[in-house]
């Protein structure tokens, strides 16, 4: 039995709590180390899918990258309350670049 976690600032994530997801609050003024630690702890504790706000993910790119190649958990970026930063779509773009060598899906649209 696996669980789903949502990480981010409270304003962005409290709604997910109502859906039955486990919310973990990391406010914007907290240090990146704390966020990284939290992510690692969640990854160890049976959380198979971890949603993380783009704003928070931008602070710990190394940690996020680390979980890209692991079979679990899936770390997925979602836009927070402050709006869409384009970070999430950039992550998809990155996979394309990694696989194909150059970006062929997003090409002209984003640039």
């Amino acid at each position, binding site marked *: 039995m696996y669980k*789903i976690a949502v990480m981010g600032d409270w304003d962005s994530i409290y709604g997910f709590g109502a*859906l039955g997801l486990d919310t973990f609050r990391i406010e914007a003024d907290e240090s990146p180390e704390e966020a990284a630690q939290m992510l690692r702890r969640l990854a160890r504790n049976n959380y*198979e899918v971890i949603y993380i706000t783009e704003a928070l993910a931008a602070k710990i790119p190394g940690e996020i990258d680390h979980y890209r190649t692991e079979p679990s958990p899936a770390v997925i970026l979602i836009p927070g309350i402050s709006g869409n930063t384009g970070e999430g779509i950039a*992550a998809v773009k990155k996979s394309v670049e990694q696989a194909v060598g150059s970006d062929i899906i997003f090409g002209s649209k984003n640039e």
Partner: protein
Amino acid sequence: MELTRLKGKLVTARKGHKLLKDKRDELMRQFLEMVRENKALREKVELEIANANRNFALARSAMSDEAVRVAFMAPKQKVSLEVAYKNIMSVEVPSYTFRTRTSDVNDMFSYGFAFTSADLDGAVRSLSEVFPDMLKLAQSEKSCQLMAAEIEKTRRRVNALEHVLIPDMEASIKFITMKLDENERSSQIRLMKVKDMMLEDKHHYKEKEEKRARRKAEKYSAG
């Protein structure tokens, strides 16, 4: 010896190269399909989450922060996740299914309706509608990431075989064959030389030839 071994290795390398190339092409085809789906889903989910956030903002404008906090303090709904793994070209790809504790959408509110605004219900509802898509997004995005890593690995292997291993082996095979041919030629020459020398020993061709030449010269000078 080494030559036969190398030739065998080259055949295996060629076969492996072909197989890996096929694997890469097939992976790439599936990956592109999946990444398109991934992109569409992500755009959809991002839009919907933004909508839900807007609804939440609206709801909170009508309520105090404390009231909102209290309303979400004890979640009623619970989601559990099941993961199955699917194998796509040797890449283990997750497939998620979720179960909620109550299947009735109207039963998930963790608060009484008396102290919260109606907008909050709508906001929670809109978010719960996004959730299945979010899970699908997680599945397809994770699959894409894993496949991208696998494709990169396979591509490296294909390139290593194609540009390094196979040419190297071909070069050594060529070198060895040349060397062997050279050896064979030189031993042949040596044999011919030895044969000449042995015949010379036996029949004294050279002396006879010289004698004949001398006789010819005398004849001319006399004539």
